[in-house]
């Protein structure tokens, strides 16, 4: 009886969130699906007609389509690599007995509080600008030719900016995990004569794997949707070098005002994102259940 009651109650308690999210998912998705089968350009609202699968075909045959998928993967994996490796390193560093640990931690997490467009503008104009940026000043100081970041390494530059924004998140989660590592275990390992390196390989890394999983999961969801940073810095170029899938949809839907094409792109993105998600869940789910 009690369990039955609890279960009913649990369902009731979950109901609002499930219903709200169901509506939030279903309504825009249904509308997007509908538009994806329409010839509908915002600027020529007189000629709306049924398009069949033409929008999908059109989006898929866009010269930038395959490169944009590749760029999306590079962007996500690049940022994940930097944030996970960098985050672990910084977490290990902060976990050491250092002076002013609190302040160091504050400084490290600060980028997380900066709005994405502001972060992109600061990096573009003050750090990476080939004429007036800090990097250019450093290069000039050493007598080197300043690097034109957004022209020569467009995708890499975007990765750097996004990684800077997400590094604090990774660091915090990894740091929390690190601090939960039993100090007794650590001491035991030390007594056994394990050096720092061995302790790291056999004790710390397995312990952090769960935290790394969480970082990857949460960040991937946000990183798949990145486009503001690209819009502010490279506008997807030069060529299609920094066009990711979301930016391609942006170009279709917002610059071309092609509602049908943008919707088709959105559906394609959702399908691809879900493939990634299922893939991720398989790997992550196991790790989380441990």
């Amino acid at each position, binding site marked *: 009886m009690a369990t039955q009651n609890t279960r009913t109650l649990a369902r009731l308690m979950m109901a609002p969130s499930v219903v709200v999210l169901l509506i939030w998912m279903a309504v825009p998705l249904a509308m997007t699906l509908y538009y994806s089968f329409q010839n509908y350009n915002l600027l020529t609202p007189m000629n709306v007609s049924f398009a069949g699968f033409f929008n999908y075909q059109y989006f898929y045959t866009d010269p930038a389509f395959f490169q944009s998928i590749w760029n999306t993967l590079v962007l996500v994996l690049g940022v994940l690599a930097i944030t996970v490796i960098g985050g672990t390193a910084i977490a290990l560093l902060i976990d050491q007995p250092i002076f002013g640990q609190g302040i*160091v931690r504050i400084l490290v997490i600060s980028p997380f509080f900066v709005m994405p467009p502001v972060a992109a503008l600061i990096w573009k104009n003050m750090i990476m600008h080939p004429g007036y940026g800090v990097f250019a000043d450093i290069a000039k100081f050493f007598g080197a030719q300043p690097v034109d970041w957004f022209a020569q390494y467009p995708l890499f530059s975007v990765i750097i900016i996004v990684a800077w924004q997400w590094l604090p998140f990774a660091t915090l989660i990894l740091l929390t995990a690190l601090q939960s590592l039993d100090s007794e275990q650590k001491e035991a390992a030390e007594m056994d004569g394990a050096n720092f390196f061995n302790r790291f390989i056999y004790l710390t890394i397995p312990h952090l794997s769960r935290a790394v999983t969480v970082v990857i999961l949460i960040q991937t969801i946000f990183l798949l949707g990145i486009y503001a940073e690209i819009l502010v810095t490279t506008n997807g170029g030069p060529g299609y070098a920094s066009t990711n899938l979301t930016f391609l949809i942006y170009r279709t839907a917002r610059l071309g005002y092609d509602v049908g094409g943008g919707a088709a792109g959105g559906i394609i993105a959702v399908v691809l994102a879900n493939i990634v998600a299922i893939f991720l869940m398989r790997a992550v789910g196991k790790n989380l259940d441990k």
Partner: protein
Amino acid sequence: MARKVTTGARIGWSIAAWVVALLIFFPILYAVITSLKTEQEAIAGFSLIPSGTFENYVTVQTQRDYFKPFMNSVILSVGSTILALIIAIPSAWAMAFAPTKRTKDILMWMLSTKMMPSVAVLLPIFIIFRTFGLLDSRVGLTIMLTLINLPIVIWMLYTYFREIPGEILEAARMDGASLWKEIVYVLTPMAVPGIASTLLLNIILAWNEAFWTIQLTTTNAAPLTAFIASFSSPQGLFWAKLSAASTMAIAPILILGWFSQKQLVRGLTFGAVK
């Protein structure tokens, strides 16, 4: 500190940590410094010492009033966070203490609602907002931000609640405590840190949301993200003014983050710690 550390090692680690921390913080620091320079100084090459002019802040304030978007940012981020918590707490509680086989799937499904690219659903959402008269309204945007962040909020609370040992609840139940009492006297005190850090994280996410807050507002509900968009690249020299506007936009949340970082960190595990 259980381990013994030599002073030398401590100094070494400290120097390394401080260098890294300052490098990461540098872009923000440099923006603040640049905001105190004149436009000419701002592009004159690397310098950490500004002439200390407040002219940019005055210019920014005369061009566009700061107070109203600031208030909107506060209202939207706090409002949407409270709303999200109201919906999420019971849900996360149920998932954590009465899990079924499908709990994990439901959680993953909730997260997957974040995967629709916002640019693709803008027009449908815009039409819905127009139909219900929600364009440029704080109510509409509060709902929007709630929906966007709800999956993360539920996820965070769920992982936190799950770490509360079930035995304690059972013990309370054995004592004949009602569900209500169970929530108020047993669960709440244990859950407060998790709720607090969820609240803080969500305020940050809502404060920094820069797509819907710009696309769905004009004047009445426009928060600081829209304030920034009006300074982002005008004609002429603008870097110092942009820095001033940026500093004004991020300062409140930065300060909040700094003061509450302990609370923020405590619950920010996403189940990463077992």
